[in-house]
């Protein structure tokens, strides 16, 4: 059984850009621990000398000419933002 501590769960949440409430931590600890235990059965497989497959159809680099093409307007994109001012996206103070 893969045992995670409550601190491990909080660490994973931080890595994931998530805030988790106190009552969620215990549930996540149990669920994630159980899932990690389940997937660990892959250790039974001998994969020595086997290459990993990250993509099934071996994509190659796709080239295109370096020509400016029409795309979405800046105005349309800023309009999608939940908060904006003077045609700029607004966020809380960073520094």
């Amino acid at each position, binding site marked *: 059984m893969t045992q995670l501590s409550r601190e491990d769960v909080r660490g994973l949440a931080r890595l*994931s850009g998530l805030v988790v409430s106190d009552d969620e931590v215990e549930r996540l600890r149990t669920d994630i621990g159980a899932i990690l235990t389940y997937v660990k059965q892959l250790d039974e497989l001998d994969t020595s000398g086997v290459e990993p497959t990250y993509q099934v159809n071996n994509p190659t680099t796709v080239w295109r000419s370096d020509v400016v093409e029409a795309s979405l307007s800046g105005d349309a*994109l800023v309009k999608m933002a939940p908060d904006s001012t003077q045609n700029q*996206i607004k966020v809380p103070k960073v520094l």
Partner: protein
Amino acid sequence: MSTISDYQNNSAVENVTQAIMAAKSHESYNILISLTEERALAKAREIDANPKKGKLAGIPFIAKDNFLAFGASTTAAAKLLETFEAPLQAAAIEKLEAEGAICIGKSNLDAFAHGGSTENSYFGPTKNAYDQSKVAGGSSGGSAVATALGIVPFALGTDTGGSIRQPASFNGVIGVKPTYGMVSRFGVVAMASGTDCIGCFTSTAEDAELVCSIIAGKDAKDMTTLEDYFVPTTIEQSLKIGIIKELMTDDVDQSVRDAVAAYADRMRAAGHTVEEVSLPIIKYSLAMYYIIVPAEISSNLARYDAVRYGTRAKNTKTLTELYGKSRHEGFMPENKRRIMIGSYVLSSGYYDAYYVQAQKARTLLIKAFNEQFSSFDVLLSPVAPTPAFSLGKNTTDPIKMYLEDAMTVPASLAGLPAISVPVGATSEGLPIGVQLIAKAKNDALLLAVAKSLEEKL
């Protein structure tokens, strides 16, 4: 259920009006997140006025709400995107519209397509077309039920690990997961880019052929797409079919095994050879999937920062707090679970043991499939271990819910085409489908098999 040909003699306005009325009269199933009524009717009037008719002129359809589309919000069934108005349309929708098809609404799904029952939706679960106390299956539950109830003749879905095939089986319709790369994913909310596929639900194999022939093809905006190879075909000779032994164990509901056996009999009667095949590694597929897919999810869902679009948490003082709280409020619990598992298996110290090991195991799985395809044309198996289960039955135990995917994830991991074909029903009248899998790019063969056996019914 309805077929595309049922609509072809009516005006587009009549078709759209009828489909919207049908959608509204089935509200208790919770199929749709939004209707695109105004835009659909405007499109219909345009089509009726235009003498040049496309292959799907005036045919209404529904798209899963993770396809970016005009005329309504694109929510992915998550609070985070509740008010998101897409600035562009998915390539698949553009292609269908170019042939005159009209999107009338956006269907319910498990948020961000994470789930196998459509219960993980911010907008509540979709009910099964045959029994409202049962799940629709998922994650493309809304699209499957819309097709089963004949609201539209076809619907679009996405299938990363079974999200088209399993709800198709639960609702008695055809569900097509094409070869990885057959259809452009441009403009579709990404889940796991290594296995995400776009496909369709229809009531006949012939309709699926028509839809696939329109949506297939290379797109510069999705570098994984293949040159268009999809050409509908017919079965002229006897095929060699293999029933996957490891997916027919005692853990599989008897009614499901009976449906597979019944379909095998139908195949034999049509002159095909059916034998048992063994792929021992297939039982490890689910473990591979629940490492690889959460890893890709954690990466793909990192983009939801509630800065450029999406619903922001209120009263946050720092940027980090804005990200964390907005994601906390905007994601469903299953989204968070998968993101965190992904962060775990990709973190330093665990990367090789989990992520790389799973990708190596995937190589072995692909090899095992290839070996079988040197002597078999098509593999046959159940779609899911059970027919549609009761609402709420699997929501407290994520592993139980994941086990629903055990039979559909192997083809996903190997990038193979796989379809779900309705075969029978349980004694309670719940539909059961069977899964057909073929070599990459042999999508048309699968539909030809389904078509030939459909005709002999």
